[in-house]
């Protein structure tokens, strides 16, 4: 195999794995949107908050310690060496469920039958609130998160792929981060678990029913409010997983909440109501932007005859341009239901 082809494969593989991470964030949006028609702007901040909480528990940080120290001149930092990773994750999950409960109790309950735009505004408020709360509770410094997942390049894969290259070529082998591989595996099992849950459990059936027709679901005794707590808890769980993955990869910092922006083009591609759409959309965006970064820049430089560095960082905007094209030609996305307004 020629090194150019192997390069192409490497780019695609890395794109796929980056795409899985986008899918993970988009999935949280889809779950809430399907069940309640709310576009949850706070999904990204939920991932950040979950990751912050996890690090805080793992390192034994005292919540609000910065605030307490500033107010009372105390020197509180840690309550102990911290919890082990597994227990921290469990506790973080409990906190995310508690958050879902509070969101229903303090926010959604009071906004029943309101316009979607009002609910959307409320989630923007929630996003700012959670960001502020995260800052107050755990501090604003960048933290490292290590949950014991393997990381770094895989030498084994490098060796295997080097052998694929034609003899005599100076191909070095493919670089694949082990963390990306584990993130992919975890995301795939999460999606599988969610599908099984929605397909084969009574609660899953109730979720699908509420998503399709909440009046009919309520008419057979299903409470919307219970369903909302469940959905927000699941979205909280997805946010926790996304927070762990992104946090392990690039550190837990407040810019993490911006990954929600990357989920937008994924949603526009996949459709806001489709779980397979979120996954395929994420993969397309992931592969698309890596390929565009690698090849589109060269092509454009060649076309305008510019210096080799004029068209770079295509990765940063490519997804949004694809989304724009979709909005123009296929606004319901690849898998979304066609929006038919009845007047």
């Amino acid at each position, binding site marked *: 195999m020629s090194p150019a082809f192997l390069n192409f494969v490497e780019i695609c593989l890395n794109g796929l794995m980056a795409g899985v991470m986008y899918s993970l964030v988009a999935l949280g949006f889809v779950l809430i949107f399907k069940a309640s028609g709310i576009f949850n702007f706070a999904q990204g901040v939920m991932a950040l908050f979950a990751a912050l909480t996890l690090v805080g528990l793992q390192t034994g940080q005292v919540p609000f310690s910065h605030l307490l120290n500033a107010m009372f001149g105390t020197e509180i930092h840690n309550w102990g060496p911290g919890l082990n990773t597994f227990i921290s994750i469990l506790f973080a999950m409990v906190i995310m469920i508690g958050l879902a409960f509070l969101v229903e109790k303090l926010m959604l309950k009071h906004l029943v039958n309101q316009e979607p735009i009002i609910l959307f505004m409320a989630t923007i408020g929630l996003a700012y609130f959670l960001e502020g709360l995260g800052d107050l509770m755990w501090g604003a410094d960048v933290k490292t998160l290590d949950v014991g997942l393997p990381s770094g390049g895989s030498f084994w894969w490098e060796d295997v792929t080097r052998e694929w290259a034609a003899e005599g070529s100076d191909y070095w082998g493919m670089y694949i981060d082990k963390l990306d591989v584990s993130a992919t595996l975890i995301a795939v099992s999460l999606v599988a678990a969610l599908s099984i849950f929605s397909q084969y459990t009574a609660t899953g059936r*109730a979720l699908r029913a509420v998503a*399709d027709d909440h*009046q*009919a679901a309520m008419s057979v*005794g*299903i*409470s*919307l409010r219970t369903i909302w707590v469940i959905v927000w808890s699941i979205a909280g769980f997805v946010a926790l997983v996304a927070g762990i993955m992104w946090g392990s990869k690039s550190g837990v910092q407040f810019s993490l909440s911006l990954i929600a922006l990357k989920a937008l083009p994924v949603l526009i591609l996949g459709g806001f109501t489709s779980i397979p759409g979120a996954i395929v959309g994420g993969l397309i965006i992931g592969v698309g932007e890596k390929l565009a970064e690698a090849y589109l820049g060269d092509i454009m430089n060649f076309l305008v005859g510019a210096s080799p560095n004029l068209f770079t960082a295509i990765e940063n905007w490519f997804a949004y341009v694809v989304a724009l094209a979709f909005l123009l030609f296929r606004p319901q996305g690849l898998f979304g239901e066609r929006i038919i307004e009845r007047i």
Partner: protein
Amino acid sequence: MNAEPKFKSSDNMNASHAQNAPAFCSVWDIHAYYGESYIVQGVSLNIHEGEILALLGRNGAGKTSTLRAIARLGNPTLKHGEIWLDHQPLHNMQSYEASQAGIGLVPEDRRIIQGLTVEENLQLAQIEKPIGWSIDRIYELFPRLGERRKQEGTTLSGGEQQMLAIGRALARDIKLLLLDEPYEGLAPVIVQEIEKTLHLIREQGITTIIVEQNAIAALNLADRSVILDTGQVVYDGTAKEVLENEELRHEYLAI
């Protein structure tokens, strides 16, 4: 606020239940609105246990709205009045609570859930208590549903969807069945089939309110009838009397 029924029945005692027994379900002076439109203007009615009541009237008389108000759907909004079912006040409840209190609604447009199979649609009704008929018993009543249990509910024919909607109501332990236009949009052959089913349900002694355009079919099924006109009760008496009273039928039902 409540208008006195214009036609008083002299024949009430012919109904299968004595008039002075305490009502199993009583709707007292309800007023309901769709936004600004005042649709149900002070309807009162009583239903005795095991009775079938036909709620009749012309288009726009407020029949479906009355039924929806009893089922506590968000629309129309109930602004005044009380609804009691077996000593439980429904008027403060939301639809899911009313369902848990024993209301079984078979809505006009059937509302079969998309993406769920026939069996899943039935199972959906048994997530929350109280649970009624077993799914096997529903399949016994509607063998056609049993044959299509793995098929997606919305792909069934109109008549089969109606059976599924009725089956879904029976899957819960209901005290009052509300049937909203069960014959609407169905071919005459299917209407006969649904009619047979409703007579079967009648034999089970399930207290029922049926709203229907096809007044004769509903009256043949019912013990009693309440006729609405512009959101008010204009007749409350036996079904038999409506069938016999041509003037009444002509004035309010146009038949």
